[in-house]
């Protein structure tokens, strides 16, 4: 096959040619392939019209451009600079639009993130406040408990002191009553003295 399509190195080709000269069967085969290949070449396709047209147009366009440039010269340059200015203005507007669109989307993203982070912060804050409140409640509770215990102790101590005083009063009262009874009795048995005294 490489022989048929000329893809062989010259020395290899020469070797195969020598074989073909000597071998009838191979020569017949090669001739059949060559014949088929030659007939294949008869199926020609028309040149691609679009390409041909495009090439002609390109040539004319290049020629026209050269002539036009030579004729117009500086005027074309001025016109070009005007076009460039216009293009620049258009591009600036387009860029501004794009930048604005980008900024809007970036702002939306930032706002979304901020909202998210704000809500997270608020949650953290609430948790901290709750913790503080709990701590405060516990401290208060402990303080109240201590105060209550102190008050209770005081009450017990007061109660004991009061009881002691009451007992003393009771003892004194009892002693006083006895003394009064004795005096009454003494007075009862000595009416004279009572009347004397009277």
């Amino acid at each position: 096959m490489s022989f048929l399509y000329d893809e062989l190195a010259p020395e290899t080709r020469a070797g195969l040619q020598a074989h073909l000269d000597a071998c009838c069967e191979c020569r017949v085969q090669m001739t059949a392939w060559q014949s088929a290949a030659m007939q294949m070449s008869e199926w020609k396709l028309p040149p691609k019209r679009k390409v041909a047209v495009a090439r002609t147009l390109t040539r004319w366009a290049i020629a026209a451009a050269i002539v036009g440039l030579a004729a117009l010269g500086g005027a074309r340059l001025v016109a070009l600079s005007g076009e460039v200015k216009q293009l620049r203005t258009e591009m600036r507007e387009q860029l501004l639009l794009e930048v604005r669109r980008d900024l809007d989307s970036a702002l939306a993203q930032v706002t979304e993130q901020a909202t998210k982070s704000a809500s997270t912060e608020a949650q953290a804050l609430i948790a901290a406040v709750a913790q503080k409140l709990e701590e405060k409640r516990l401290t208060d509770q402990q303080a109240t408990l201590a105060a209550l215990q102190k008050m209770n102790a005081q009450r017990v101590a007061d109660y004991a002191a009061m009881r002691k005083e009451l007992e003393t009063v009771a003892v004194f009262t009892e002693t006083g009553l006895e003394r009064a009874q004795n005096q009454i009795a003494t007075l009862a048995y000595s009416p004279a003295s009572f009347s004397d005294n009277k």
Partner: protein
Amino acid sequence: MKLFSLFSVSDEQAMWRVQMQDDAEAFAILVERWEGPIQNLCTRMLGDAHRGEDLAQEAFTKIFARRKEYEPRGKFSTFLWRVALNLCYDELRRRDRRRETSLDAELSNEDTYTADELPPDVSMAREETAERVRGALMRISEAYRSVLVLRHYEDLKFREIADVLDIPEGTVKSRMAEGLSQLARLLEGEPESKIRIKNTDVRKELLVL
């Protein structure tokens, strides 16, 4: 200046621009360079110039759509030939299905021309041969036809065809030999068995190179 630089870039560089920057100008250059060969390939594979043009357009559309899949290490042309050939295979399969499901089950016009039955309106000897070749090629299986078309009409080397079809170079050569033999048989109108027996031993020797 930009256009000038674009004209001097290689296919691979242009395709890289298409791939990385969606560069429409670079793609236009590739289409300009390859539209003709791809149209010819599709026309020869399908035996139909109009459908060939459609498929060539489809191939470029597909190339653009699949531009990210192109690996810059490989040749752009290999990628392109492969995409176009696969589209041809799909089209041929669709035709087969249509033919199978059709109640008439008639061969389309291009397939009715055999070696000894020529269309009545073909009078010129050259046109006659061209029509015979086209008809004969359409009767050869796709595997052989693609090798014949790529080597003979598109002038690809056997090594390049092996890359496009992703098969060993030896297989490409043996397919070429078998394809040419079948074509010769169809064009000469010889019975199949006769050629096969005659060529079995001879071809082995000639295929070595």
